[in-house]
């Protein structure tokens, strides 16, 4: 295809967000290596949706692929934000957990395998609430098990964003990648508006919403490692670099003192402005020392969940 040389660069770039979930997953792999596991023709769909009058999808909105990225083994799990808002149900949650456990088993046996989560999800699917919550617990414990051996990278690219239980999954990942279009938060804007009233929080105020949940803001807060434009080539490059970088010295979710030092800079007696939640690169740099203090020798026999619980209790 001929490139139109007179157009600005941003018009020539290939959008990552506009790709389907399956194509997003495929685009990350070295050419021809991505192979789908438990695909639509295996027909592992949710048994709960049809009984509630909701049409199921043959892959339950969760695409699992395995192959190599930059020559290294990886699994990619992509959620289809168009189906049930990318909600986690029993089947999609089990697919994600199984993929993480597969990568963990390979890594334990000496063949390091990273995991990339392409998260377009509102969290737990309400039609399968309890099973979805159980799935989130399994997902988090599987991420924590894998992240000791190989990087777990969460990518939040599209405006569906990543909310609810799955924001916790992003939080325990080795690395988080976002675009400025992406959103990350525990309670979604609509939920807060519903609970507290439109005067308190107007979910239709897009600039306000993105100033709080948006990729740029989350990056400024140090919750995101890499902020990339909506560009498929940039996304592939970023994911490759992070996989090559390997396991971070201290996972973000164990940097408890660092988080506390950030929270300590806020004054709860006044109304906050999102810009106050930006911590400068300089302050993050000095806090790297803090992060190292957080690092505790963690024996494998302690088990991943134990490590995590200790981190929270300090």
């Amino acid at each position, binding site marked *: 295809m001929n490139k139109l040389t007179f157009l600005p660069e941003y018009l020539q770039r290939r959008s990552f967000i506009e790709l*389907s*979930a399956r194509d997003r997953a495929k685009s990350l792999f070295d050419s021809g290596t991505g192979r789908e596991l438990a*695909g*639509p*023709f295996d027909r592992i769909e949710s048994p709960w949706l*049809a009984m509630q*009058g*909701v*049409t*199921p*999808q*043959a892959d339950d*909105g969760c695409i699992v692929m395995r192959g190599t990225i930059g020559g290294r083994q990886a699994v990619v799990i992509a959620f*289809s934000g*168009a*189906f049930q808002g990318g909600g986690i149900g029993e089947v999609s949650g089990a697919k994600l957990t199984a993929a993480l456990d597969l990568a963990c088993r390979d890594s334990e046996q000496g063949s390091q395998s990273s995991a990339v989560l392409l998260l377009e999800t509102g969290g737990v699917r309400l039609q399968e609430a309890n099973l979805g919550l159980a799935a989130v617990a399994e997902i988090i414990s599987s991420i924590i098990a894998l992240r000791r051996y190989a990087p777990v990278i969460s990518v939040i690219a599209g405006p569906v964003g990543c909310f609810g239980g799955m924001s916790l999954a992003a939080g325990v990942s080795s690395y988080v990648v976002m675009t400025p279009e992406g959103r990350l938060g525990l309670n979604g804007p609509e939920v807060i508006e519903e609970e507290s009233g439109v005067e308190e929080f107007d979910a239709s105020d897009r600039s306000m919403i993105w100033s709080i949940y948006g990729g740029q803001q989350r990056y400024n807060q140090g919750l995101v490692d890499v902020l990339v434009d909506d560009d498929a080539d940039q996304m592939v490059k970023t994911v490759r670099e992070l996989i090559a970088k390997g396991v971070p010295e201290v996972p973000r979710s164990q940097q408890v003192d660092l988080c506390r030092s950030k929270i300590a800079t806020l004054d709860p007696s006044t109304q906050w402005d999102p810009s106050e939640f930006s911590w400068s690169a300089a302050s993050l740099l000095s806090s790297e020392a803090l992060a190292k203090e957080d690092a505790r020798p963690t024996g494998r026999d302690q088990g991943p969940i134990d490590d995590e619980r200790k981190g929270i209790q300090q």
Partner: protein
Amino acid sequence: MEEFEFNYPAKRKATRRAHVGVVGSGDLEVLLDPVDGDTASVRIRTSVDSFKTKWQAVLDRFFGQYDAAVHIEINDAGATPGAVFLRLQQAVEASES
């Protein structure tokens, strides 16, 4: 949600299976699987009730042009007849390309 099945005569073998679309609002998913024999079958699950005759009309038109022996599964989330027809054509294109 409603579910129904239609059958049409087929004259040839299909090339390979194909999957297109997503069960998102106003869209649908099509799974096309080659089968042996001389019949094409279609199973539809749709979130919008009481449009069976419309589905029949769209499929009559589609199978007026397509004669391969396949089993098609459609999971629909309220796609318009035009969108249904385009997705079916896309599935055929993916199957024969």
